């Protein structure tokens, strides 16, 4: 074997070229972290107290009680599922025209601006904030929840649909336009077939999200299983709360599997 020729060492060039700046930044971040942690005022006595409380909660969850409050649980579940399905259907239906209007390659500028701002408003607020508003407007109960989830669905679906429409293979739509088709016919023949699989997939995915959200917004009074869970927790009914959590997990799992299967089948 011949001796290798003199080799040149190679190291990956650093992200920040200037060594002063680089090491300065590292040092600054480290100092900030130390300073930030030192301002945290942890009361260790309360942590000790909390530990025993936490143990009681866990105990409840390990011995879930489905029977004592079964009526409340079922009612909450039913409300949640109703809310989920109705809001997904309504939200998706409304999001189709808005999504069309928010696609730059299909809609004229004024329509585009209006639809994009609807989407922006809907996406600006987290579900809980919208739920608080709707509960204040329409009172406690699942109706406020239904409105919240529908509203949130519109922003989510319309945005993703619009982006999908902007990504279509435009040659297909152009060919349809060249046949003398009207605007609606171009949408129906040139665009809809291209975005349909994703539209269905997204609706199923949103169904998933809406169920999980329905459990959350119940806590601020928008009905459903979240409200039941909240009541159980404030009554220190940890075994009932455990039962509710298990049911939520079960429904989410079932929805997850079902929707992923459906999506595969649609593709």
């Amino acid at each position, binding site marked *: 074997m011949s001796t290798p020729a003199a080799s040149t060492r190679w190291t990956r060039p650093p992200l920040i070229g200037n060594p002063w700046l680089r090491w300065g930044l590292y040092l600054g971040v480290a100092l900030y972290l130390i300073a930030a942690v030192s301002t945290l005022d942890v009361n260790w006595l309360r942590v000790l107290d909390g530990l025993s409380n936490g143990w009681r909660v866990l105990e409840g969850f390990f011995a879930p009680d489905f029977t004592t409050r079964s009526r409340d649980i079922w009612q909450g579940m039913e409300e949640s599922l109703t809310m989920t399905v109705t809001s997904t259907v309504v939200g998706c239906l409304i999001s189709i025209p808005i999504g069309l209007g928010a696609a730059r*390659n*299909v*809609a*004229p500028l004024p329509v585009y601006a209006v639809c994009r701002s609807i989407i922006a408003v809907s996406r600006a607020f987290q579900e809980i904030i919208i739920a608080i508003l709707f509960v204040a407007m329409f009172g406690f109960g699942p109706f406020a929840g239904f409105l919240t989830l529908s509203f949130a669905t519109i922003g989510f679906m319309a945005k993703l649909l619009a982006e999908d429409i902007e990504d279509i*293979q*435009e*040659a*297909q*739509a*152009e*060919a*349809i*336009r*060249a*046949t*003398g*088709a*009207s*605007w*609606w*016919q*171009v949408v*129906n*023949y*040139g665009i809809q*077939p*291209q975005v*349909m*699989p994703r539209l269905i997939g997204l609706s199923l995915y949103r169904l998933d999200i809406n169920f999980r959200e329905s459990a959350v917004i119940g806590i601020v009074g928008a009905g459903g299983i979240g409200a039941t869970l909240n009541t159980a927790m404030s009554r220190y009914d940890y075994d009932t709360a455990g039962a509710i959590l298990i049911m939520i997990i079960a429904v989410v799992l079932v929805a997850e599997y079902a929707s992923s299967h459906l999506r595969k089948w649609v593709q």
Partner: protein
Amino acid sequence: MARSRLASPGQDMLRVSSLSKRYKGGEDALRGVTFDVPAGQVVALIGPSGSGKSTLIRCINRLVTPTKGRVELDDTDITRLGGRGLRRARRLMGMIFQEYALVERLTVMENVLSGRLGYVPFWRSFFRRFPQSDVDKAFALLERVGLSEHVGKRASDLSGGQRQRVGIARALEQDPALLLVDEPTASLDPKTARQIMRLVCEVCRERDLPAIISMHDVPLAKMFADRIIGLRAGEIVFDGPPAELDKAVLTEIYGEEDWTQIHPEHEVRPEESAEDRHAHEERMAGLR
């Protein structure tokens, strides 16, 4: 058919006069293009990339709006039409595309029937309730292009040559008075390319249908066309029978090159030119 397409024999079907197009970017894609096409004539449009072939074809059916000049089909000035009138004019012009431009997720039959969209109301097309005569015609055309067994397949399940046959059937389903063909063979292998060109020319002869076919492949153009128009930088630099297309003319169109060495199969696809990009933007803007 009730529609009288041919006012009198020998009359020009299509008349293009001093047609110009300037894109938003400022470049002139067409500069005063003038030519007539009589019934039944197959015209090949050749020229280097960016010479305005695609723009010219799209100005004729107004997928691109020309800046100046007139396009008359059967004495209707297409450049002045809008809305319903434009759609009526478009349905008389069947178009065949380079990458087939079929709706991939629709069936072969739906793709062919989409040629009738300019004739049927929205609800009929939405529920796929086309008049029986349209469906009969579609079956006949699919048989003509040799795709009878593939009626119910998705367009995406077909090979390139088969897809282009569907594209031809879709164009003919329109009962066109004119065929506009944009590089029909650019994505096909040499043998399929010839078959497709032969099919296009055959149907034109059968129906006395004029056609304008843009293409890169000069030997193929000479083989099939009745007449060749050479474009360079948006201007017509040659217009005559294929026999007159010699070395000097090719140099005039494409620039200096050894023309005995042409390999049509190994055609280089140049990068997208600025014209292509602006043309694309404008075509898509028309969707709105």
